[in-house]
């Protein structure tokens, strides 16, 4: 099976307090931020790797995983890390962050899918920076492919994927015929979430995303990494979404001490208006 996995780098969510908004609030100052792959994209890559191998012998690849990202040269670090964990080749679409919106990315991805003809696109359900949660759905629409979003389990069948989606009160299982698009949620990296055809059903993966072995990190330098121009993929590069203003979350106000229960109740009722 050949799987395309789009990746996005995001500002390290653990260091969100480093994000600065310059006066005016029209942009975000990204200097000094540490970049990490979007966690959901890492889960998608893990799922794709699991779908293209026999879990018991992960060194023999049973398919191809192509990772793709949009961004400047520095984004190649993200791609190399993905290649080190096991992806077979990488594509970087050269673009600046402010040239991109969900629509443009979805259209460009469509062009890449047309070229690469993968059997499936597996991607994170959303990026943790913008939290838009839309590219998977838009891309499926552009391609006319079946889609299964918020996947918690994937099982490969002949010519189809059996996808479990967690919803309130239970799990919906969908069978999508290949080629198909799947966006994954966090439980996709549990030990028994993904099974390829080769992997025995009693096999258990380690919980979480796999680590890259040292020899693989060294070998990743030699794996192919292609560069494409955004203009080659999309004819209309005008932004459909424009950010007008950013605002930092309000800083927490100091608390107060109350004398007795009576005052507490009064304040909760009159000031906090929660009772």
């Amino acid at each position, binding site marked *: 099976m050949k799987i395309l996995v789009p990746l996005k780098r995001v500002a390290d969510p653990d260091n969100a307090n480093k994000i600065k908004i310059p006066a005016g609030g029209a942009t975000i100052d990204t200097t000094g931020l540490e970049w990490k792959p979007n966690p959901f994209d890492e889960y998608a890559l893990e799922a794709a790797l699991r779908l293209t191998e026999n879990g018991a012998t992960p060194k023999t690849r049973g398919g191809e995983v192509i990772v793709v990202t949009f961004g400047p040269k520095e984004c190649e*670090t993200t791609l*190399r*890390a993905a290649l*080190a964990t096991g992806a077979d080749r990488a594509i970087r679409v050269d673009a600046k962050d402010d040239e991109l919106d969900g629509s443009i990315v979805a259209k460009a991805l469509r062009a890449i899918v047309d070229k690469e003809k993968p059997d499936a696109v597996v991607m994170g359900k959303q990026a943790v920076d913008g939290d838009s949660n839309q590219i998977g759905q838009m891309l499926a629409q552009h391609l006319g492919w079946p889609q299964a979003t918020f996947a918690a389990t994937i099982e490969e069948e002949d010519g189809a994927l059996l996808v479990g989606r967690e919803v309130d009160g239970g799990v919906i299982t969908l069978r999508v015929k290949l080629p198909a698009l799947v966006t994954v949620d966090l439980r996709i990296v549990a030990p028994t979430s993904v099974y390829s055809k080769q992997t025995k059903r009693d096999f258990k993966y380690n919980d*979480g995303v796999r*680590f*890259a*072995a*040292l020899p*693989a990190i060294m070998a990743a330098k030699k794996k192919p990494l292609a560069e494409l121009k955004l203009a080659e993929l999309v004819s209309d590069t005008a932004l459909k979404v424009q950010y007008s203003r950013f605002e930092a979350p309000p800083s927490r106000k100091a608390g107060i001490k109350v004398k007795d229960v009576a005052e507490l109740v009064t304040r909760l009722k009159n000031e906090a208006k929660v009772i």
Partner: protein
Amino acid sequence: MIDWSETHLSIRDAFRRFVEAELKPNLEALEHGDLPPYEILRKMAATFGLRDMAAMKFQSDVAKAKARRERGEADKPREPRANPAAGEELAMRMIPIIELSRYSPGMVTALGVSMGLTANAIMSKGTIEQKERWALDLLTLDKIGAWAITEPGSGSDAFGAMRATARRDGDGYVLSGSKTFITNGPYADTIVFICKLDEGNDPKDRRVLSFVLDKGMPGLTQSKPLRKMGLHASPTGELFLEDVRVGRDRLIGETEEVQARDGAKDTFASERTGVAAMALGIVEQCRMLCIDYAKTRVQFGRPIGEFQLVQLKLARMEVARMNIQNLVFRQIELAAAGRGMTLAEASACKLYCAQAAMEVALESVQLFGGNGYMAEFQVEQLCRDAKVLQIYGGTDEIQISQIARNLLAGLGRERHLDEPARRRQREVLNHGAQRRGLRAGGAGRRRVGVDWHRQPVVCSGRYVSLVAPATRARGAEGVGVTAPRELFGLAGCQRERRRDARTAGDAAHRSVCAVDGASAARDERRRVAGLARGDLVVELTLLPQRERRGGRVDQAEDDRIRPLSAARHEASERSARAGGRAPRPRRRRAPGPRRRRASGTRRRRASSPRRRRASSPRRGRTSSPRRLRAPCPCRGRTSSPGGRGGVGVVGLAPAGSGGGEQQ
């Protein structure tokens, strides 16, 4: 190397993620709950493919060694040559050390002793069978190793005060003694036990041997972990041996000729370099925690980072981090260049890194104030852990004496002489120096890299073609003696001492002295000695058979010194006063039996240039081979081993005589 490469950083990120996911949650149990570190280490080795890499490297090394043995070749010592892969390999070993040390330096110690020290002891000196039997399991962490040298009464003076013994018993040995402060001791499956061979002789003359022991052997007791100040993730214990019977197959190398001393010295050097990476991890973590704390801790209405006393602490931490990181980079660069640190350089490196890590960790506790004293804020643990860096692998004090010994190499060798000889040595060395108001010993010597077969690497002036040491040495035995040391005293020499034991029958070492250095004092001393700048002097020592151990030259022999004859010195002085000419002093035969000349040829070789020289005016010296040195008259009076070996000057050539480019 000025910074980590992108690949290094990916490796670092991967290890950092692992440490935060697997080690951090267990830190409490490792610190205060006696959780042994081994399962986490094994998981790390498996996750990152280290286990497979170690096993593959082991298989290929052993296969090569076997092929060599089948062809009947001896193990070749590796020629030092530039090898970028070795640098990468070292970087990949250091990055995990740094990342582990950020949370638990003890894990590094436990890992390093097992996979490093113990396995290396077997890999470097053991037979192929011993490697296969014990080393592979250590390298893959399937088994845990311990390296037992320290005893209750022997720490810094590891060999001198060692009391553990091996007695011969039929074809095997009986071992007894007790060891303490043994890392991994309580849990070790494989133990390298270092002891002295008791042949009924004086303990200080005894040979040092290493044996491999397995857990559970009759007579071997492994204690429970000892309580200690820090480094709790590394279990430390005692070992007791009561008449443990072992076969010869457990003696490393399966021969008594393998000297554990050499192995231990190599081990110290590598242990010391590892400390730099550990110190870097501790300092990086302290610095990071302190910066965060300084930004968020508010006192007197503002973050404490705004106070200059706090800023000073942070700045000093950054300086320490930069310095230690540079030392780590230097080690990687050296490895890539096919070199390693010398023992003295490694000592200097260890001394600085250990002290810097301790200072940074202590200051971190101070910066955190009351919180720093509490176990909840990691700096307390790092501070306790850092202290060990100043103690193990050679205390700070031992490192200092190693460095000083190296700096004062000329003087330091005195201690190998007996007292009267030492006194004479001092007199002789100081004689000329004091007269000129100089300090004896000659500081600031530059090393001259001279390869035997090739041109000198760094050597101003001219170069004399040299004959293979073995050839010269065979003829030279007992012929003459000279001490390049006297040239040190007189002419400001730079010298390189190398050992050669190329063929089975030859054990020789040589010293190459380049007479160099630009200063008025040196010019004067050269003039007195009758040498020109750039002259190269070669000294060879051929050791008699009994001095050789396993084809290696005994270290003690290397360290001995043949003092300059005071008579000769005075003669040259007289000549200096008399107008720059340096006729040979009249020779008084030393008391004691006349030394034997090895061969007539040799004698002619030694004497003819002298005759020529005696009859030619001094000015002519550039056109003829310079005099060869005659036996030093003080020979018989010293207790130096020169009497046992032969020392001869093989080439002492005038400037230009090799290339013939003058005149």
